[in-house]
């Protein structure tokens, strides 16, 4: 009996890990290539099939990088906390891998029982609980390296992650409110048939807040302060090399997948998309495609934006995102009640009002926070 359970668990988890590890490799290539093109470079194009000159658009690059990473020397600084230095990358990887299980991916090889092992009632809550562990890993890495830059990076990371978790959760609350369930599968199911939450003013606002907070949670540009290269070298993984660094790297990307996956589940209809009636397994493809769309936007932002300063980052979370997401909860509540009335006209009015309120609040908060910051005019002397 327990063997069957073990097999069930393996069937559910191993493909998940394999798929996302492969996707991670692919994403590193994609990111390098896309960034290169954004910056008018070519990007990796040499590494393809070994011992030939076939480049395959540089698709062999992740493999080559991986091999390099594994064989690189593992350097632990003198005076560093050896145990924590070792534990930190592992602790970073485990939670990000773990939360992948909560994504409502309907793999065709999973039977009714096994897949639902992960569809706990409180999947969304579990998701946030476990992604919160990342903070600890980052702090551990920053502290254990015994490097001032690492410590600064770790402190920044903790402050940033704790602050952005609040708007992240508050915007997810809206969806939970609307669906009335914390179950990821139910949330995805509620959006079947193009009825995605992102297509409503409150849903859209929540999605934007969620996405921005997700950028901050995963330390992506423009919120990559914990690893701000121009200020604190590489932040908390300044002192990491070789395979430990690779683990951090992997953890970061897996976390990106996970949080994009949650965004897809909450706002973009999960595996919903055309053609599902004919081929049910397409839902997995749709799900992954949506994740990649979000990751593409992340890459695009990374190629465009400089980063914020620490105080601005905090100000943005507490003075802009938090009030807006709280307001959004109220807006969504009203909208929910309006929806219950089942009246087209009222719905339209609700839409318009909530649009106006949200946009007005956003620009008002923006004005408040920005102060006198605006483009300037200059004089000329002949």
């Amino acid at each position, binding site marked *: *009996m327990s063997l069957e*359970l073990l097999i069930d668990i393996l069937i559910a988890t191993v493909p998940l890990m394999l798929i996302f590890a492969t996707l991670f490799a692919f994403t590193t290539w994609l990111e390098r290539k896309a960034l290169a093109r954004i910056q008018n470079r070519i990007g990796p194009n040499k590494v393809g099939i070994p011992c030939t000159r076939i480049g395959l658009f540089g698709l062999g690059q992740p493999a080559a990088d991986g091999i390099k990473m594994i064989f690189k020397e593992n350097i632990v600084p003198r005076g560093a906390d050896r145990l924590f230095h070792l534990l930190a990358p592992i602790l970073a990887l485990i939670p990000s891998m773990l939360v992948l299980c909560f994504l409502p991916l309907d793999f065709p090889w999973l039977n009714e029982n096994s897949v639902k092992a992960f569809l706990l*009632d409180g999947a969304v*809550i579990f998701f946030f609980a476990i992604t919160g562990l990342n*903070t*600890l890993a980052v702090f551990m890495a920053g502290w254990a390296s015994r490097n001032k830059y690492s410590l600064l990076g770790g402190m920044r990371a*903790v402050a940033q992650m*704790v602050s952005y978790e609040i708007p992240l959760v508050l915007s997810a609350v809206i969806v939970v409110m609307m669906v009335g369930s914390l179950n990821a599968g139910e949330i995805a199911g509620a959006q079947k048939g193009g009825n995605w939450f992102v297509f409503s003013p409150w849903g859209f606002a929540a999605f934007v807040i969620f996405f921005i907070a997700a950028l901050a949670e995963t330390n992506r540009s423009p919120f990559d302060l914990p690893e701000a290269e121009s200020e604190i070298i590489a932040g908390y993984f300044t002192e990491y090399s070789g395979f430990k660094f690779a683990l951090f790297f992997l953890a970061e990307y897996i976390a990106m997948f996970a949080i994009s996956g949650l965004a897809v589940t909450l706002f973009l209809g999960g595996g919903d998309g055309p053609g599902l009636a004919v081929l049910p397994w397409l839902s997995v493809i749709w799900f992954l495609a949506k994740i990649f769309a979000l990751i593409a936007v992340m890459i695009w932002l990374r190629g465009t934006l400089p980063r914020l300063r620490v105080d601005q980052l905090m100000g943005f979370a507490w003075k802009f995102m938090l009030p807006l997401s709280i307001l959004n909860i109220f807006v969504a509540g009203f909208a929910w009640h309006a929806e219950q009335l089942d009246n087209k006209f009222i719905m339209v009015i609700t839409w318009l009002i909530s649009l106006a309120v949200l946009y007005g609040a956003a620009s008002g908060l923006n004005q408040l926070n920005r102060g006198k910051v605006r483009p300037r005019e200059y004089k000329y002397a002949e």
Partner: protein
Amino acid sequence: MNEVIAFWILSAIAVLGALVAVRKRNLIHGVFALLVFFAGLSGLFLLLLAEFIAAVQVLVYIGAVGVLLLFAIMLTERVAGDDGRRMTSRGWSWGLVVAAAVFVLLLLSLWPVQQLSMPKAKDPSEFLTQISDPGYDGNSERKRILNSVRTIVNRWSN
């Protein structure tokens, strides 16, 4: 059988974490050990099918309390170095007495919990189907846990 093994493993982790948290000279190490203890506890909750409490345990204790502790240490201590300060206060004997008293209290309150017993699932997979079953009433589980907590509290206050 499975849950028994899991229970012992998790308990061991929790107890070890707690012991290390108490014993460690280095405050940061201590905090992380404490977090391990919390994690073990959360696993125990999960084992009791109290998944919500387990999640909240992780969210609140590891996510919030742990980070709060780390922040507090970070802001008050010299984080970059571990100065070997006295880890036991002079009044440790009083602490021992209080700890023993608390332990006895807990021991006294232990026996009704055993009566409550864990859900008698014959098949582990039943566990899971039970959870995913639409008809499964999570509330009753919660009630059960709450009842046990209430019993403990009542016994203690009486």
